[in-house]
């Protein structure tokens, strides 16, 4: 049977397993991805089944992990790299920005860099510093990278398949606090394109655009708003680079209002890009300015404050109300 209910974590694990099984060039690399199966168990059992040559525990050096993955890609491999937590991607940032993103262009297309960098990201799990960040804008600004984030198990399974099959480097942000959320996964369906947004809930009064962990919050907000008689459309953007602006435009042309929601700080965040572009595209359709709900311009706070820091139901609804009040 191709349809099974599973958690996002399990879906990602199944997806890696399938990739390793199908393509001998696929490798899984990272810290503790072997026997431990990764700190979130996304690679659980893979080393046991595919061996140490395919599922590789690396030295603790993120630049080294991505740098050697680039070399392996040049040799014809398709490395899927795990960065243990969002806050630890920065030692690899130079390799990602100056090498991984640019080498294809540097070679005028003569080399391809099919490297996936998986990053569990975002807050909500009560963790210590550096374990709850949402740095997606820092990658989406960089040409040469593709940046995506699934919000549910089915997308987790399929988007990871597509990312691995992509000949471009993909930064794959996994919403860690949704790892244990279950959904039906049809491993034989034909998935949406990797970079297409999806209408997660149809509505007519206002559009909420989100991705990753915030899709669930937006769906809850939409349900709550419905009780107040407001019809809220929720778009799951799925991709932060490219962004499916056409889908957002279509929705905003109908609703006339847009709120973008993400965990990352609002300042210079993806909401800014969406607001700027959609305002340009839909200037005469917008009844209110595009509003943004997201993190504050502050380091991700200690765990006991994260409930306040993270955009939740109430903050989303507040923005919906503010938008509708225009």
């Amino acid at each position, binding site marked *: 049977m191709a349809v099974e209910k599973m958690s996002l974590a399990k879906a990602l694990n199944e997806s890696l397993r399938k990739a390793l099984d199908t393509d001998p060039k696929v490798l899984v690399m990272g810290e*503790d991805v072997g026997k431990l199966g990764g*700190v979130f168990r996304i690679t659980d059992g893979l080393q046991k089944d595919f061996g140490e040559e395919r599922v590789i*525990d690396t030295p*603790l*050096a993120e630049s080294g992990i991505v740098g050697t993955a680039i070399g392996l890609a040049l040799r014809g491999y398709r490395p899927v790299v795990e960065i243990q937590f969002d806050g630890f991607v920065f030692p690899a940032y130079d390799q990602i920005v100056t090498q991984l993103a640019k080498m294809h262009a540097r070679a005028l297309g003569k080399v391809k860099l099919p490297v996936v960098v998986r990053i569990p990201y975002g807050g909500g799990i*009560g963790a210590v510093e550096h374990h709850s960040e949402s740095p997606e804008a820092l990658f989406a600004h960089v040409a040469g990278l593709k940046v995506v984030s699934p919000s549910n198990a089915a997308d987790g399974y399929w988007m990871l398949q597509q990312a691995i099959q992509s000949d471009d480097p993909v930064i794959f942000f996994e919403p860690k606090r949704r790892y244990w959320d279950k959904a039906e996964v049809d491993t034989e369906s034909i998935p949406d394109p990797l970079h297409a947004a999806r209408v997660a809930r149809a509505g007519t009064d206002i559009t909420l655009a989100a991705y990753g962990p915030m899709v669930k919050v937006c769906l809850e907000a939409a349900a709550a708003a419905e009780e107040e008689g407001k019809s809220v459309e929720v778009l799951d953007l799925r991709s932060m680079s490219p962004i499916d602006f056409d889908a957002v435009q279509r929705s905003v042309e109908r609703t006339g209002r847009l709120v973008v929601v993400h965990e990352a700080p609002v300042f210079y965040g993806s909401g800014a890009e969406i607001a700027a572009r959609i305002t340009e595209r839909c200037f005469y359709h917008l009844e209110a300015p595009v509003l943004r709900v997201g993190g*504050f311009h502050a*380091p991700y*706070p200690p765990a006991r*404050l994260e409930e306040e820091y993270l955009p939740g139901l109430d903050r989303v609804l507040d923005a919906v109300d503010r938008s509708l009040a225009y």
Partner: protein
Amino acid sequence: MTVENTAARKPRRSSKRVSAAKKPTSSEPQLVQLLTPEGERVAHPDYDHHVADLGPEELRGLYRDMVLTRRFDAEATALQRQGELGLWASLLGQEAAQIGSGRALRDEDYVFPTYREHGVAWCRGVDPTNLLGMFRGVNHGGWDPSSNNFHLYTIVIGSQALHATGYAMGVAKDGADSAVIAYFGDGASSQGDVAESFTFSAVYNAPVVFFCQNNQWAISEPTERQTRVPLYQRAQGYGFPGVRVDGNDVLACLAVTRSALERARRGEGPTLVEAFTYRMGAHTTSDDPTRYRHDDERAAWEAKDPILRLRKYLADQGHADEAFFTGLEAESDTLAKRVREAVRAMPDPDDMAIFDHVYADGHALVDEERAQFAAYQASFSTEPDGGSAAGAEEGK
């Protein structure tokens, strides 16, 4: 006496490998040891004089430090289980490495720890409860590094080695008679930042000691995933000495660290100390070591316990009587109680603390967001005209 690394030696003698012996190395690493696992004091020509000043009182002091640290650590683990802390990184097994090196420091020396140096913090006089804030989730550290010359815990592994090097460059510029010590783990030794700190400290001849606690594991990865030769040898290639010390021998750790600090203060530059020890517990309370290592390995290291061997020595030498040991137990209980109570009483930070200390000189956007958030929060308040859900509920 310099003895061979016993973990590596046994399988060589029996000429077949036992599974717990996971450190086959090309060259036989030298391990500085002053106190055997059996509690026997052995001589070492290079290091004896560094502990010659230790009388019974000082030895009891080291013992007390280790016992209290272990007790504090156990209490913190318990507090995590009880939900009072979100996480705890236990130092169990590494007491000698931390107390030995920590007690080698002078007040004016400066420490850059990782996230596990609770024993070093103890030596610096940092109130143990101060360490718990970040593990409870009420702050990211928050203590004043300059009060005890003990920097904040650093979670991004290896980063602090560069801070230590820079600080030491400053010490040298100031012509100060002090030194700096940077702690990091065997796993962190692979980070480019650590290598760069070796380069900078060597080139500028900075008065810094790199104290690597090789506890054999970086979460689930054994040290072989980081190096194929003993870590202390890394220093050589950068032009400064490296030494491997028995990390479960508090005397040897004290002696070796004192020697390295003196060298630094004399203007002879950096030293790498590899304290060969063992992480007896899980990586943190979130970790499950049964997935990747065998119990027999742990058992082998239990026989080398840092506290037991000093206890034997103290008892054998008549340096401590039963009253001392029972008194210490009572003191441990008091400490544990104090920590427990302090943690439970630790208040959650105010919501608005999110916006505090982002900048020293202020930032317009932070001010704006703070004001907006305050207004937003106030909209849920109980004021009669509040239209929010909270207000409505209160108004029933």
